[in-house]
Every structure is written in C-alpha cells, then in structure tokens.
C-alpha cells in the first residue's frame, strides 16, 4: 500500500446504498470469527457512516456475559483499531448488547425474542433483523429451526439468516441442510456467505469481463488455452487443527472459494446485473463443470501435506507435528486438480486449480493463458515465444497484468515478453475494504448477489463428489504427497501440468 493522504475529492463520493434500521444478531459471539472479522467489519461500516443510527448488534453465545463484558471483550480484541478512533468506538460500543443463548434450548430462543423486542424499543430497530450463524456447522440446521420455531423468521421482508461456510460436508449433507433451511424460511432470507466474493478483486472479474468489449470476444476456447486458479497461503494450520483435521483443503478452500472464482471466471454474461441473473449463470457453469477424469480421479487430482521446513534458525513444523493434529493424519493441506467445463465456451479448455498451506507465497490469482500465435516470425529473446497471459491478482497486490510480446530493443527483430500492469494501489491509492465489510452490508441490505444460492452450493459439492468418495472409500488411490514447507507444493502437482506440456505460474 502506498502511504498517502486520502484524496479529499473522493471523500463522501461513494454511492452507498442505505441500510435500513435493524438489529444484527451474531450467534457464536464469543468465537474467533466475531472479534477477528465480524465486529471489525461492523466498526468499519460504522466509521464510514454506513450503518443507520437505528442499529444494534446483539451478541449471543452460551457464556454468561453481560452487555458490558461483551463490550469489554470486543474492545480488547480490537485494541489496535480503536487506538486512533476512541470516540467512534465509544459511540459504536453503545450499540453492542449481549444475551446468553444456547440455540439448542427453546426457552433461550424465546427469551431472545423478548430481548429483541426490548432492543427494538430501545434502538428503534423496527423489528428488522439479520441473524448471523457463526457457530459450529453442525448447528446450522438446528439453529435455523430454533429461530423459525420461535417465530423469528416469519417475516421474509424483515428477517434474514447468514450462514457461514462450510455449508455441508458433501453433496448429500448439503442437500439435507438446504432442505432444513428452506423449511425455515424463503430462499431470499438465506445468505450463504463466502467471503471471497466480498473481495473487490473478485467482483472486478465481472466488471473487467462485462464492462469492456475487448475481453469478452476472446474469453473462450478459441483464444484461451488454459486457466489456472491459485489460492496459496504461507501460514500453517495454526489454531484451527481441530476443524482442519475434519475438513482438509478440499472442503476448506476448493469447494467454496476456488469454485466461486472458477464460476465467476467462466460464467456467461448475465442479462442484467441482478442477483438472480448472476446466480443463475454461476449455477449453470458449475453444473457444466466436471473433474477431468471422473472415472479415475487420481489422474486429475493431487493431494499433499506440508512437512517440516524453514531454516536452521527458524524451523517450521510439519503438519503432523502441529498441536492438535493426529501424528498419522492423512488430511490434505494442499490440493491441485484439473477440471473441464463442458459448454460451448469452454469445451476442451483445462482449468487447473490449486490451493495449499505453507506455500512459498501468500497470493490468490486467476491466470488466463492464451493460445500461441499460429506462426512465429521472430526469434524470442527468452528462447521461445511466451504465450499471452492475463493475470487477475486477487490478493495481495490487488490488480491485473497483461503479458504480451514486444520488440526487444536493438538492431535485430527479437521479441520478449513485457507486463502491462494495473494496480489498485497506484490507481486508487486507497485500500479496499475487507470482504466481510461488503458482505455484512449486503446481507443487511437484503442483497443476495454476492451470496451463494442453494443450487450453486449443491452443484459445487456434486462437482467434487467423485474425489470425496474416493478419499472416503479408497484413500490409498489418492495418496498424500508430502512437500517441504514454504515451497510450491509436491512435485506430483507439477507433473499434473507437465503431462499437458504446461507449468504452474511461479508468481
């Protein structure tokens, strides 16, 4: 980020939609996500004056905290953000409340209804409520049921439920959960969150494609030879071993974040910018996607697990040595796979997706590689001509670059690749909001555009069903390849692309 003063002419120009008066109820308020992401995002919205004055945040969890204790815990967790905004925090904190609630106890939920009515009186929130389920996934269904039984979801205009990922563990459980959730309210009340969709750069893929005429004509099998989607992390499992051991990279990253990036990259242009039109197109492309080899998935999927690494002075533990991890764990921390999208636009174009922990760099990107020029007229300074690439950088260093050949200076006619860059920092000079800022605001505005619909979720799970079944039934056929921490993953993943004469991009 370039350190600079704010553009004074930019202040106040954002055309933000106005959030109606309401109470946001967070279940799991004592959890990590609440103080790490949700409350900071709401505080950011407050500072940007995008929350209505008639707003309340009610934290709910089983711990017997009081309002003041909850405010204190949040202040402690956000200390660094509050330091320069003490006055704003004091105003914001006055809107925070807490109610001890166990969603499994009907009497607790009934009491919650009473507390919400009191808050409506106190804060003029007019019975308008957003319920955020930041609880263990096993409580999503029962949580929705409890809210519905207490009559808290009966008004579809004034109540909505936000559900965190993962939505189900596989196709069957996602279907079952959808059935429960839909029996509790209407689809337009359900907001299945995927925070990647809140990223400015992911949304920019749609703008880049559908607001410009130069990209869409070449955004197809005639011009694009392959697509790579990467979400790489440098961190290990950290304090999430308990959860991660039961999910692994496939469930934690691929089924949701990477699949959503694939959907937005590959979808057809919607007829209009409308939540249902966009979600229809995303669902269609996911329904057309398949593993490159569904019969023998081991030919198109590589699983890996990070081993020890680092330097002598700063050693890094391997996954199996991490606290809380089974020393014989076969949970994957890395996945690479090859997919196809069987439709007119993408037939035959391989989509390679990869994600992993403890990789060499933290980055997320989509790389579209174009077909080579049919005839090479010039010598290439780098040995051979480089295919044109459009690289959409999701994070960090948000932006895009386009790689193409130019004449290398000198008397000869030799070509070499150069990069034409667009950087959010250089163009706008301001950091973009965290994904949760955008998504929380959208949920409170009842705008489902950036949330996944039931059929999208199910299509995404169905896509990976052959892999999940194989891991369940015959895990030895999809072995875990160890890789050294802070490298780009197992050699087998390189071999997956090498078979097609390709390389993973080394950013």
């Amino acid at each position, binding site marked *: 980020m*370039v350190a*600079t*003063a704010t*553009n*004074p*002419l*930019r*202040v*106040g*120009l954002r*055309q933000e*939609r*106005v959030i*109606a008066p309401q109470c946001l109820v967070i279940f799991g308020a004592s959890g990590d996500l609440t103080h790490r992401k949700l409350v900071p995002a709401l505080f950011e919205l407050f500072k940007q004056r995008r929350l209505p004055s008639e707003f309340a945040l009610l934290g709910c969890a089983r711990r017997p905290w009081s309002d003041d204790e909850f405010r204190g815990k949040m202040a402690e967790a956000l200390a660094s953000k509050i330091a320069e905004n003490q006055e704003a925090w004091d105003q914001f904190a006055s809107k925070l409340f807490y109610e001890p609630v166990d969603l499994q106890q009907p009497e607790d939920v009934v009491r919650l209804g009473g507390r919400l009515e009191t808050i409506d009186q106190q804060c003029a929130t007019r019975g308008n409520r957003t319920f955020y389920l930041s609880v263990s996934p096993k409580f999503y269904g029962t949580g929705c049921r409890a809210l519905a039984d207490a009559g808290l979801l009966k008004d579809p205009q004034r109540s909505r439920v936000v559900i965190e990922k993962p939505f189900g563990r596989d196709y069957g459980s996602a279907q079952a959960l959808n059935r429960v959730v839909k029996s509790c309210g209407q689809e337009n009340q359900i907001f299945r969150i995927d925070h990647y969709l809140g990223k400015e750069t992911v949304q920019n893929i749609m703008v880049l494609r559908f607001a410009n005429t130069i990209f869409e004509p070449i955004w197809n099998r005639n011009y694009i030879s392959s697509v790579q989607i990467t979400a790489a992390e440098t961190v290990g499992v950290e304090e999430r071993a308990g959860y991660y051991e039961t999910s692994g990279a496939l469930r934690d990253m691929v089924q949701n974040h990477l699949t959503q990036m694939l959907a937005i990259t590959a979808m057809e242009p919607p007829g209009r910018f409308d939540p249902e039109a966009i979600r229809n197109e995303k669902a269609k492309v996911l329904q057309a996607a398949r593993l490159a080899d569904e019969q023998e998935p081991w030919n198109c999927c590589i699983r890996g697990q990070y081993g020890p690494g680092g330097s002598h002075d700063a050693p890094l533990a391997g996954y199996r040595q991490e606290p809380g991890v089974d020393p014989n764990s076969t949970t994957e921390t890395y996945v690479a796979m090859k997919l196809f999208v069987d439709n007119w636009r993408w037939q035959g174009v391989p989509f390679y997706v990869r994600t992993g922990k403890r990789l060499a760099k933290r980055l997320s990107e989509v790389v579209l590689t174009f077909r080579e020029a049919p005839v090479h007229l010039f010598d290439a300074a780098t040995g051979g001509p480089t295919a044109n690439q459009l690289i959409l950088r999701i994070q960090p260093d948000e932006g895009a670059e386009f790689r193409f050949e130019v004449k290398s200076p000198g008397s000869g006619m030799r070509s070499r690749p150069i990069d034409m860059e667009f950087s959010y*920092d*250089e*163009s*706008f*000079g*301001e950091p973009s909001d965290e994904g949760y800022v955008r998504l929380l605001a959208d949920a409170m505005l009842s705008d489902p555009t950036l949330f996944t619909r039931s059929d999208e979720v199910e299509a995404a799970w169905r896509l990976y069903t052959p892999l999940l079944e194989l891991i369940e039934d015959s895990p030895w056929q999809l072995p875990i390849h160890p890789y050294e921490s802070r490298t780009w993953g197992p050699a087998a993943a390189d071999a997956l692309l090498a078979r097609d004469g390709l390389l993973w991009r080394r950013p």
Partner: protein
Amino acid sequence: MSPQLTLQTPLELAPSEVPTYLEQLWSTEQQGNTGSGANTFCLLIWQPAWAEQQLVRSGRLNGPITGQQSNELLDAGRQAVIDTDLPLSTPPTAGELIAAVAQLDGDHKADDLRGQYIDPALSELQPRRLITLAPTINANQGLETLVAAYCPLPEEGGGTTACGDVVVLRGGHDALRDGMSILQPLLPPSMPSWVWWNGFLDEAPDLMDQLACAPRRLILDTAVGNASHCLNLLRSRVESGQAVNDLNWLRLRSWRETLAMVFDPPNRRDALCHITQLDIDVEGHHPAQGLLMAAWIADRLGWQLQGSKISEEGVTAQFTRHDGADIRFQLMTVPTGQPSVHAGQMVGLRLICQPEQGQGVCVILCAESGGCMRLEGGGMASLELHEEIVSVQHASPEMDVARLLSGGHDSTNPLLAAAAPLAARLLN
C-alpha cells in the same frame, strides 16, 4: 417504458371525504385478495407543468396534460422558442418561454391527467401514496379532489403486489391553499413523506412553506427559478436541518466523480495543494450548478472565500488556500445551440495547479456534448495536461427522483450541506 395509468377511473370526492374514503379502502375488510397497501413512503408532488399547460392552451401541443417531461413537450417547447424570438439557448421549459407563450392567443382544452400517470421508475418503488397538487393556469379555478387506488403489475409475474393510491388536488392557487388542510391526515406517521417541488423555486412561496415543512423530506431543483433565490432557499432549508435533496446537485455526480478520479492516483494528490485557478463554463445564464461545483471543490480543499463579483459574463471570485496563496475563480456562461432541458448545466471545468517548483498541471474536464476550446486556450502549453470527457446522461426528473427515493436519503448529503451555503455566498 411508458408511464402507467391508474387502473380505475379516479373518483371525484369532496375534500373532506378523502381521508375517510382512503382509510376505508385500506382497512382489513376491504383488502380482499387483491394485494395489500405498501408499507413504503408517501410522495407529495407540486406539479404545475406550466410549460405544458401553456403549450396545450396555445395549440402548440396536443393533450392530455400529464406533467411528464415527454419528447413531444420538449419539441414543442423548442419550436416555441424559435417562434417567440427568444434566444436559441433558452431551455424548452424555461420561465421566459412560459411567459412568452402566455402572451399568445388560444383557448385549446385537453384532459388534465396530472397525478394519474405514474412513471414506472416511481411505481417500481411501490409508493404507498402519491399526492399531486396540480395548479391550473386559471388562478380562480375551484378545487377538485380525485382519488384512485392502483396496484402495479409485477414485471416478471409472481412477487407480492403492494398497492398504493393516488390523490390529486387540482385548482387555482387559492383553492389549493385551502385544500391543503386535508394533507396531514393523509400522511401515515409511520412512513417517511417526501415532497417533490417540481416547479420554479420562486413561485408560490406560501404553498411551498405549507407543503414542504419538516420532517417531510424535500426534493427540489436549483436549476429551476432565479439562481440566487434557488441557492438561498437551498441554504436556508439545509441550515434549518430539513433533509433536502437537489436534483441539480445530483446531476453533478459525474463531474464530481470524474474530477475525483483524476486525483485518485497518489502521485497526483500533491497538485491539489497548489491550485491557482479554477474556471467553470455553464450553459446559458443560470450559474447555480457551476457554483455548487465550485463550492464543493472549495469546501473539500479547505479554501476560504475572500469575495465575489457578478457580471454579465458570469461570476468571478477570489479564494485563499491553506497556505495563504490566492486562487482565482471564474464562472462563464456560454451560449449553446441546443440547450439542455435543465438550465445552466456545466459544460467545462479547468483547474490550474502551479507548484513553486516543478512543472504545473492543468486539468480540463469537458462535457461530451460540447467543446472545450475556450478552456484549452490561454497559454496552457507549458503545463502537464490531463483532459477528461465527462459523460452527462440526461435522465428524466422522474428517474432522478426515483434514484433518490430508492437510496433512502433520510438526511441531507453532507457534501451538499457543506457546499450549499458557500454557493449561495458566491452569488450574494
């Protein structure tokens, strides 16, 4: 999309019967299966449509009178500008034109359907109640009160039908003033009420005070009426704490956005501290919009107004920057062949930045519809030039109002609140 007409023929009632009739209409027993009353907002519209009424009366436009800004109305207005020997830069619904057409003979009649045509942009928002005050050119005409319910048909089938109703008060000035006593009972306290003054801001001040009283939210257009009066009215309303939205300010959006965009790259920010000159060109002789733009820039950059002067050509003023250096401001009114519907729309802006060291910068913004030759001249060759074309899309007033209503806007935009007093001072 063409405007929707109410499905039932409006019922003419005595004014005193209107509140009771509407109360019964929406009572639970009467709802049946046809839909429910929308729980949204009420919109009161001052709808004089003077130009349309005069053009119809003089036989230059066929009826019915709708109050909508149709292409036929604009064509007839432009033709009347030529026929009445007014300057070609006169907008087709300008006050001068209305006064000139009023002198012409004619007594043509047409149905007056003001308040009964509902623009789709507005009906999509499902207003609970639209109340139209329709003054007639015959100032002595008595009061007529019309009522109709309507249920907008959902475009894609399905969906909940939320119905509303329309109330029309039609008559001469005095009759309307008397009829206003029925308004307050027609505005449910649980819903926000908006007043759209769709006429000259310097007409019927007594009715405006009665109609646009707080906490009703006011929508006005500072391009309609005497510029000084418009800006003073805007300032006083903003300072009184009423929620005010100005369509003229709304139309500046692409200018503000484009200028901000020029200075988004961090390496250009420093130039904002070294501005020495600001020039703005506007169409015709209505400086309100240009002054609002200048006031916004001055407010955002912390300039202090030292003094201003009004002349035939426009307005000049002197500001000082934070560092005490002077800034020269000039607003020029320029003639145009095909004037915008709205008086005084901006056609160009130039900012000159002269740092003590290094190269100066000149930023020029031009409306896509006009040239910028005047701003491009004057020895700019030695400066680093950034030139942008501003896309100015002319939406109908109904579309602009719908955009405001859909955004909530329950308070005055802070940028407008800061700019309005300064813009008014520039003209005083």
